[in-house]
């Protein structure tokens, strides 16, 4: 039986220490609960799958030199792609204005179900895809078919829409037609009718930062060739990505020197590009996790320090208790129970504080509201930590010999 009454009345004898430990735990909980919440949100966000064969994809930023006509750009891009596809290490390749999770800027298409609808049913982001795009990304076609070569029109990213076939992701198809089959249906973009001929597995859109339509990609059949240059998305044969990353620039320059492929970041692996795009989020995760760990260590240190002091102060009382028949385990239980009571008080105050901090953050930083389970996790963590911190001083207290009672009293 743990003696709660004596513990509580003993606490009133050193209010300051009790208050300081409780306050420390409360503050730590308020910060840690909110930090874990932000971290878990960001981790979920930055580890969302791109849907493509990430490990084997390399992206080339190719810029043409001089003022090309659209026809010249088409011819040169076609030549580049033919060369790339013929390389022994290349599985497939195509040209586009962007690629999944490329950066802050992207085209956004508003999708309507009829030509005279007032507001769009969904937003989406287009890829200008040819018949090699699906194979390049390694994205599975779930229903329907790929584009046929004769459906592809020559163009640039600014010639937006022409009537014709499109392929949409599963997510977009579900948004547009819920459970009905999307195949064969017609949707409208800028008043132009587009027929869905294929539904593919989900693939992330070009822009980062969007959450609501992150997987609503749409493929528009185009031989894209911008007179200024494009991105070449190249899929390596398994294990050859790094070799390609190092050799692609030379291969392209060997074909034509009238281009700029930056020697440093002109050719990059998809993994590197994606982590750059999400670097703000991963940075915050690192920072907040570090702070949480430091905070918990600091709190633990503080509890250890104060508990050692209390044990030292009460050696005589402990000796008396031992002399009167208390076992070592009773002393251990006493100190741990005391710590638990203080920590529990701290976590109750800390829960209120955590919600208050969350409210302030919601107001100033547009954060979401804190679910109670993060407070529960944080509280559990701190209670365990408190017990661990008190354990070593408590064991030291349990070792106090009954002799102490007489020794100190005599002194």
């Amino acid at each position: 039986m743990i003696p709660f009454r004596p513990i509580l009345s003993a606490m009133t004898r050193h209010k300051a220490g009790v208050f300081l430990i409780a306050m420390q735990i409360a503050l730590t909980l308020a910060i840690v609960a909110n930090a874990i919440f932000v971290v878990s949100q960001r981790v979920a966000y930055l580890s969302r799958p791109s849907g493509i064969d990430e490990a084997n994809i390399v992206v080339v930023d190719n810029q043409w030199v001089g003022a090309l006509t659209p026809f010249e750009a088409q011819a040169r891009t076609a030549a580049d792609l033919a060369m790339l596809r013929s390389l022994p290490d290349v599985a497939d390749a195509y040209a586009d204005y962007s690629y999944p999770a490329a950066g802050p800027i992207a085209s956004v298409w508003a999708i309507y179900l009829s030509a005279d609808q007032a507001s769009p049913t969904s937003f989406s982001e287009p890829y200008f895809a040819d018949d090699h795009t699906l194979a390049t990304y390694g994205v599975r076609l779930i229903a329907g078919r790929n584009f046929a070569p004769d459906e592809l029109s020559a163009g640039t990213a600014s010639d937006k829409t022409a009537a014709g076939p499109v392929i949409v992701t599963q997510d977009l198809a579900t948004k547009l037609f819920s459970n009905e089959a999307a195949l064969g249906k017609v949707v409208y973009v800028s008043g132009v009718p587009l027929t869905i001929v294929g539904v593919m597995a989900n693939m992330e859109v070009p822009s980062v930062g969007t959450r609501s339509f992150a997987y609503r990609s749409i493929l528009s059949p185009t031989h894209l060739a911008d007179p200024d240059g494009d991105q070449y998305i190249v899929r390596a044969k398994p294990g050859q990505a790094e070799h390609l990353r190092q050799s692609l620039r030379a291969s392209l320059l060997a074909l034509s020197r009238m281009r700029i492929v930056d020697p440093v970041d002109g050719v990059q692996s998809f993994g590197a590009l994606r982590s750059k795009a999400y670097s703000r989020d991963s940075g915050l995760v690192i920072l907040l996790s570090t702070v949480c760990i430091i905070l918990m260590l600091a709190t633990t240190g503080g509890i250890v320090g104060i508990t050692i002091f209390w044990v030292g102060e009460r050696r005589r009382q402990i000796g008396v208790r031992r002399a009167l028949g208390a076992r070592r385990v009773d002393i251990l239980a006493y100190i741990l129970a005391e710590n638990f009571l203080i920590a529990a008080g701290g976590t109750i105050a800390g829960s209120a504080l955590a919600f208050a901090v969350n409210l302030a953050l919601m107001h100033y930083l547009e954060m979401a509201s804190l679910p109670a389970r993060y407070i529960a996790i944080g509280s559990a963590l701190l209670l365990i930590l408190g017990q661990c911190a008190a354990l070593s001083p408590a064991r030291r207290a349990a070792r106090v010999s009954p002799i102490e009672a007489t020794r100190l009293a005599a002194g």
Partner: protein
Amino acid sequence: MFFYYLQLGGRSLSRNPVVTLLIVLLIAVGVAGSVTTFAVLRAVSADPLPERSARLFVPQIDNRGPNRVTTDREPDPDMTYRDVAALRGRRAASPQTAIYSITLSAVPADLELQPVSAKGYAVNADFFRMFAVPFEYGGAWSRESDDVGGSEVVIGHDLNRKFFRGSNSVGKEISLAGHTYRVSGVLNEWNPLPRFYAAPWVQAYAPPAQVFIPFQRAIDLKVPTTGGTLCAFNYTGTGWDDLIQSECSWIAFWIELPDHDAVVRFRTYLTAYAEEQRASGRFDWPANVRVYDLRQWLKYMHAVPAETRISFIVALGLLLVCTVNTVGLLLARFMRHAPDIGVRRALGASAAAIYAQYLTESGIVGLAGGLLGVLLTEFGIRGLRFVFEARVARIVHPDAGILSVAILLALGVSLVAAAYPVWRASRIQPAWQLKVG
């Protein structure tokens, strides 16, 4: 006396090295965390042009009305070409400049050298004067060149070094995206951050721009923007000619106004312009215009990354916890010295003397924490590149100011934390302690 206290403090601290080390570490970590994140926040929210910012303004016109996708009534950050052309033509404010981002393939006359991709802006001649851009050689192009779209270019320091080996290249020729331009000026290193003047939400911490060509020249050659273009979702246009006529916004427009009266006059003028557009049938909503000054503009554009603010707040929380922790540890340590204090009091030391002694001891701990904090801050600032975007991390430096803030903060924290424990110590009764000891 002070030296005696220093000696006493030193002796007492070395008696309990683990607790002492813990307190020093706590203070150092708390201080380093808050000072590092403060340095980041200070760097990213700095005024990019402190001497000019009060006179630089961004006008905005609501050309979408209530039919926009977002629910607020804020106009687009950029302007349409037609509004820029109209405002420029009327010379409503002077100086003024239109700006949009471009990327041009730059080919040097010297065929030994590699062509490079040059990022920069299409601007008006006033740009350089308005933003106090420093020239190494030459200067801006002329007003005439500005009006007719002459083939002149101002190049950046780095491009000049690459193509002309850093020599005075004014008057020399350079080929940009297949057209020949004459260099009219070469910039000194110039890169005010955050990059306020165009699309601060995309490229607030970009490396220095390397080419500036006349706005009119860029329009004549149909040089596409590499910034954002915001169009209505039912926009059906394709290509350049439609874009020029459209309600798509993609050009930043900056004006310089000398004083408050001029701002009021300009706002009235802009409202009248929007009403005129409404009368002509272009808008069917009341005039909705904004005139932000540079600092308001950066705030409105959220140029300061939210992450930097979150981390500063979290670091302050860390400092607070460390302070509370220090209070607890100091209390424990001073109470442990209760017998010593009793003896000193009994031997005639006043309560004030006890105060002085233990504040000195705390000060020593604070100073040690501060010194370690400075070291940790140095490491922290070096480690920023793992946490913030490399471009943001690069602009934060551990200067003398920041490091002295660290020491002062540590000293402050230790003294504040010591206040209560020292007060308790000074109240220890001499007789009572002697009896026990």
